[in-house]
């Protein structure tokens, strides 16, 4: 009932539809142009992929490239395993921080969320050295570990804020019911944090899925390429195969889009549940 007195409901819809068009138009252009030849893209960027304009060459070069399923698999593996680790380890740490008082607890809490502020990219050289020393160069494990480290601070921050707002009595109740601290975490806390899992997942997933930097440095090998890195083969020094780039990236949007739609409802509920309050 906020601005209804000023703007009729139709007015609100008009504004939202206008902004939605602004959000969708470039997206539509991406998809439209992914079905066109390079020449058609530039000759007529807004034209629909019909008649002469139509070309599935982009998709052909992506889908017929036998490596792309592998790249997709790699991206999915890295993203999913990292997500699970971020969610599990983040929730464990957040549980410890919000549930127990122990010496240095607030210091450790501060330490663990410090990473929100600093991009790990700043430490690339030392990180690569470390990965090599551990014998993890050119493995998906390297990426998973780095993304987990990168995603943990925000996850811990959101989970801790949320768990602090949840009544402690339920855990006490479980203790009286005879559950060990570990089982309390898995049987009581995990179901409790379910509303914010979506929030954490969406915030962590996007940068992992779209990252180009760490695959390039840590795991550029043929076997471990991710989609974003795989797309780079279409970007030459002087010639760029834009049709293929757009096709590959259009396809690459799908998994995140699906995950987002799955999480979307929970996302708002999670934020609303007090997870991300000041």
């Amino acid at each position: 009932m906020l601005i209804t007195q000023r703007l009729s409901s139709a007015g609100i819809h008009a504004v939202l539809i206008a902004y939605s068009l602004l959000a969708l138009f470039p997206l539509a252009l991406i998809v439209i142009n992914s079905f066109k030849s390079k020449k058609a893209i530039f000759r007529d960027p807004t034209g629909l992929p019909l008649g002469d304009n139509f070309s599935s060459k982009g998709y052909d070069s992506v889908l017929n490239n036998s490596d792309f399923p592998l790249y997709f698999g790699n991206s999915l593996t890295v993203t999913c395993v990292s997500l699970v680790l971020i969610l599990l380890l983040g929730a464990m740490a957040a549980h410890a921080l919000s549930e127990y008082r122990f010496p240095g607890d607030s210091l450790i809490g501060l330490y663990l969320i410090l990473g929100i502020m600093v991009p790990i990219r700043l430490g690339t050289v030392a990180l690569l050295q470390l990965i090599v020393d551990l014998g993890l160069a050119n493995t998906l494990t390297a990426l998973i570990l780095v993304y987990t480290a990168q995603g943990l601070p925000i996850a811990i921050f959101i989970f801790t804020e949320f768990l602090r707002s949840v009544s402690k009595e339920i855990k006490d109740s479980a203790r009286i019911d005879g559950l060990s601290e570990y089982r309390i975490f898995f049987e009581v806390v995990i179901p409790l944090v379910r509303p914010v899992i979506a929030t954490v997942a969406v915030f962590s997933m996007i940068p992992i899925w779209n990252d180009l930097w760490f695959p390039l440095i840590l795991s550029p090998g043929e076997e471990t390429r991710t989609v974003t890195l795989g797309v780079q083969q279409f970007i030459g020094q002087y010639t760029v195969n834009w049709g293929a780039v757009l096709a590959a990236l259009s396809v690459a949007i799908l998994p995140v889009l699906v995950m987002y739609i799955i999480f979307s409802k929970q996302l708002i509920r999670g934020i609303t549940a007090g997870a991300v309050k000041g």
Partner: protein
Amino acid sequence: MANTERPTHRRPIRWYILVFLAPATLIYTIFAIYPILESLRLSLFQANENGATFEGLANYARLIQEPYWAEQFWNAFKNNVLLFLMHMLIQNPIALALAALLSVPTLKGAAVYRTILFLPTLLSVVVVGFIWQLILSPLWGVTPAFMNFLGVGSFFKPWLGLESSALVTVTLISIWQYVGIPLMLFYAALLNVPEETIEAARIDGLNGWWIFWKVKLPLILPSLGLVGILTYIGNFTASFDLIYSIQGGLAGPDYSTDVMGTFLFRTFFGFQAQLGDVYMGATVASALFFIILIGVALYLFGVQRRLQRYES
């Protein structure tokens, strides 16, 4: 009662706390903190014939004194500040306005709008950079045709290529992509404003507009603060990807879109003819770290405290 009868009341060591904390702390320390600390350490060294020698804060002195470095540093810093201000003054008000509209309880299809408005956030910068360059290009006619259609074609300029407008244009693209995040946070905060408070305000005779300004806005101030600090951090860390993919490593024209991120990238890894310098790179990285730290500290100890008074 004899003392000897009493068992000691010292609590047994609570290993489970360690078990819960250790995995996250270990991975985070090894793969995030250690590499960054290593960078901080490198900033105290300089390369010479026999490897590198400890130089204390000499690199920092160079960064802010030697004209070559200082010019780039302050230019990038200035652009970052501008970027931050523009995000605060454009992105966040747009996000707030959209969130306010979305949170109108009688609105139909809010979920659809929400999904659409968040979509750009899911995209990778490679494709965002490409598509906006295509749209704004003076050559391929998307924007010029649109503006001609509206009858304002003569106002078209190659915005991305002009020193006066490149930074603003990049900022607007960034806003287009990332407005979804503050939008979600504001939206959630607005949903949390109790209906009774609003009803009370209506009984006090406030209309919708004033209810928003006088009641809802103060109540969601904490999330305004959070969005502010997230904008601040993102402005220093995430701005790199977009600017690099649209304007390239030299952040043209004439460094007018250069930010700390692109400056750092060039310094650390080198760029074309420029050779990489890990030590100066580490110095820029550390300077960036301290700038972010100062901002966050100001937020935590100044802004947040004041804001939270509204919570109760």
